């Protein structure tokens, strides 16, 4: 994959010949990817191909074993803890296993990124209620994360990812456990955010979701196959 294929200009997140392997192996090799501001990407590939791993490289939960990954022009392996925290405050991530604080009600979990970046305030409370309503969790806001269904957790995770109005949204199977109608609604949210200029990367198995998205935005579809990143063909 050449850089030119992904457009010019500054990248929000960029992988340069990045590779990664767990425990000395090689899972991903020579990944090149530029997420330019306002771009919309889908990432597909069979289970176990390394989609989650690639996303982890993107939010610097993992550092590449070869090549480099830059977040907002900073190489991830050179970032201090504080740099990393600041970078993550500008990103919204939907983790595949959601990652909530199980002792706090959903509404506090969703608001946590605001508190952490000290952006909480009266205006944000209204935002929070709207957002929970949007993802259909208004009635469940005082439930603890373990009390939610898988789909409810994913919706809450998406709400948490977008609450800070981040520059970039990385979502790992955000519709994995969700019915088609709700999936379309979440997709709608992502499309709206993209139209507002957010950079979006969604890892998913769900090809019909990708098709639905392509009807609305110009999204690029990437596929991981045999440890390499490819641009998916017109078969979608």
């Amino acid at each position: 994959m050449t850089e030119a294929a992904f457009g010019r200009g500054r990248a929000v997140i960029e992988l340069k010949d990045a590779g990664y392997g767990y425990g000395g192996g090689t899972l991903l090799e020579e990944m090149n990817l530029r997420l330019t501001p306002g771009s919309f990407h889908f990432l597909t590939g069979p289970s176990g191909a390394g989609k989650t791993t690639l996303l982890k490289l993107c939010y610097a939960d993992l550092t590449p074993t070869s090549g480099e990954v830059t977040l907002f022009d900073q190489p991830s392996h050179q970032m201090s803890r504080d740099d990393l925290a600041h970078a993550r405050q500008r990103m919204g991530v939907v983790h595949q296993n959601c990652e909530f604080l199980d002792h706090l009600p959903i509404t506090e979990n969703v608001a946590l990124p605001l508190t952490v970046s000290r952006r909480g305030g009266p205006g944000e409370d209204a935002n929070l209620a709207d957002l929970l309503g949007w993802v259909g969790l208004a009635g469940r806001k005082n439930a603890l994360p373990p009390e939610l269904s898988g789909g409810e957790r994913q919706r809450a995770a998406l709400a948490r990812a977008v609450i800070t109005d981040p520059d970039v949204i990385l979502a790992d199977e955000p519709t994995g456990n969700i019915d088609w109608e709700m999936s379309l609604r979440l997709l709608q949210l992502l499309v709206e955010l993209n139209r507002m200029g957010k950079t979006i990367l969604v890892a998913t198995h769900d090809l019909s979701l990708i098709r639905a998205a392509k009807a609305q935005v110009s999204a690029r579809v990437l596929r991981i196959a045999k440890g390499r990143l490819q641009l998916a063909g017109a078969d979608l």
Partner: protein
Amino acid sequence: MSLARRVLGLLQGDAQADRVVPKRGHSVRLTLFTSAAMAFLAVFALAMSLAAGRLADRWSEALARSSTIRISAPAAEMEPQTWAVLEVLQQTPGVESARALTDEEQQGLLEPWFGPGLPLEDLPIPRLVEVIETAEGYDGEGLRQRLAAEAPGAVLDDHTRWRRPLVQAAGRLRMLGWISLALIAASTAAMVTLAAQSALAANERVIRVMRLIGARDVYIARAFVRRFTLRAAYGAAAGTVLGMIAIAILPRAQTEGAFLTGLGFAGAEWLWPLILPLLAGLTAFWATRVAAFKRLRRMQ
């Protein structure tokens, strides 16, 4: 000062940061209990220090480095023996000055007992010689022997001198009190460190999630620091109050010299124990902070 501001900011605090750490877990209850117990002990150590200090002060004043020699002799020998005594004293190392009391002074001493107008010259009243010693003091036994040789009627009365070792003991006791306080503070720090470490280990997942959503390490550390600082301060406040009550209801015998009856606080000294919760909070603040940052640095 920035430390004061930091502690203050911590207390009015970010209640949300505090909620990030689950309340369950016995490390917090352990902190509460131990700091209460430590504060309770600290109250007694403090009381002991202050009481020993008072005792040392009172006794060393009473020492005043003076003693008396009493000369009882037939009227004819009184004068020569007095001179002999003064002569001996003049040659005794450790004696700064010595002086025979005048008749008027002796009369003054006796007046409270016999009333004014006592015919002193008609009574076989012993002559008193006041001895002021130097800071090093004199050798009491040596002086007594020489007096016996030179002036058989002279008796050295150095009743206050036996207190000298007691004053030293009181001073030592006061120091031990302060050392105890330091040890209690160190134990509190060690205990809070262990409790904080165990809380940090138990909440590794919480720390991970916090980092994933962009929390800086100071923010995460603050959640733990706030939790432990407040618990230690609350626990210490309870322990301090209990300790102060225990001291207040100690039976108080008035018998002079009974050392134990002096244990306690006098007047404004009652304010001293009130700094214990503050000290406990500060100790916990630093102990948790150090433990948290150490742990966070290690957790990559």
